[in-house]
């Protein structure tokens, strides 16, 4: 018999769902800009978790696993749709009035602009600003090189700034 000092918590599916459903749903929603599809993907991710629960080590592992699977499924769903989801850039209307900081209109504009980005930079931006992951964590989650993550984020920010300026939204 081998004794271990680490305490292993029992994993409860319901608790994992409560704790992580917003994260999983939001990854899919921000990526696809489609609430119904995001809900469907989120449900599938948790069904998959349930199937694989015996192999999940700890709550931290569960969070890591869920995020990775949510990212994979969202990207797969986008590819199946075979078109850029959502929003063509032309559809992102210029506001008639410059929205103030924190304005929901600005938030919606930003979400739509994010949705116009190509898949990989789009997901990198979501993992950075929704999940507050650092570039190394983003690279690991997405299975892409660290350098690629950094350049995607840099370029995406530059692109967003440019598009916002054209719409009269800029640094105050």
């Amino acid at each position, binding site marked *: 018999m*081998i004794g271990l000092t680490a305490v292993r918590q029992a994993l409860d599916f319901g608790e994992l*769902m409560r704790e992580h459903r*917003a994260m999983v749903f939001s990854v899919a929603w921000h990526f696809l800009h489609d609430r119904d599809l995001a809900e469907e993907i989120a449900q599938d991710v*948790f069904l998959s978790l349930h199937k694989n629960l015996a192999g999940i080590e700890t709550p931290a592992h569960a969070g890591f696993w869920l995020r990775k699977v949510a990212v994979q499924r969202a990207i797969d769903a986008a590819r199946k749709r075979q078109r850029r989801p959502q929003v063509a850039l032309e559809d992102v209307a210029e506001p008639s009035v410059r929205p103030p*900081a924190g304005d929901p209109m*600005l938030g*919606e504009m*930003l979400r739509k602009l994010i949705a116009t980005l190509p898949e990989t930079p789009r997901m990198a931006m979501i993992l950075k600003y929704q999940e507050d992951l650092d570039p190394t964590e983003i690279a690991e989650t997405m299975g892409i090189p660290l350098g690629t993550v950094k350049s995607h984020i840099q370029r995406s920010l530059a692109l967003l700034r440019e598009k916002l300026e054209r719409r009269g939204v800029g640094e105050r």
Partner: protein
Amino acid sequence: MDWLEQELTQALARKEPAPGFDGRVRARLHRRPQWLAIAATILVMIGGGEAWRQHQGQVAKEQVMTALRIAGSKLNRVQVQLKGTEQ
């Protein structure tokens, strides 16, 4: 973090799915997979012997994978913990 990054953090804040999400997931958990029921019915109806065999095979394969997943994960946990104590 500049103004744009702050706005992005706010814009991309997590949102909850529609109320009742947990219930919808649980409902699907306890339902026999619909595709399985429909596929089985269709196969029986068209009397496709080979198609039925294929279907049965996929079901058997899925069960084998589940069994090995469960047993394998327990053994893997033992293996990981044994390796941890050796270090």
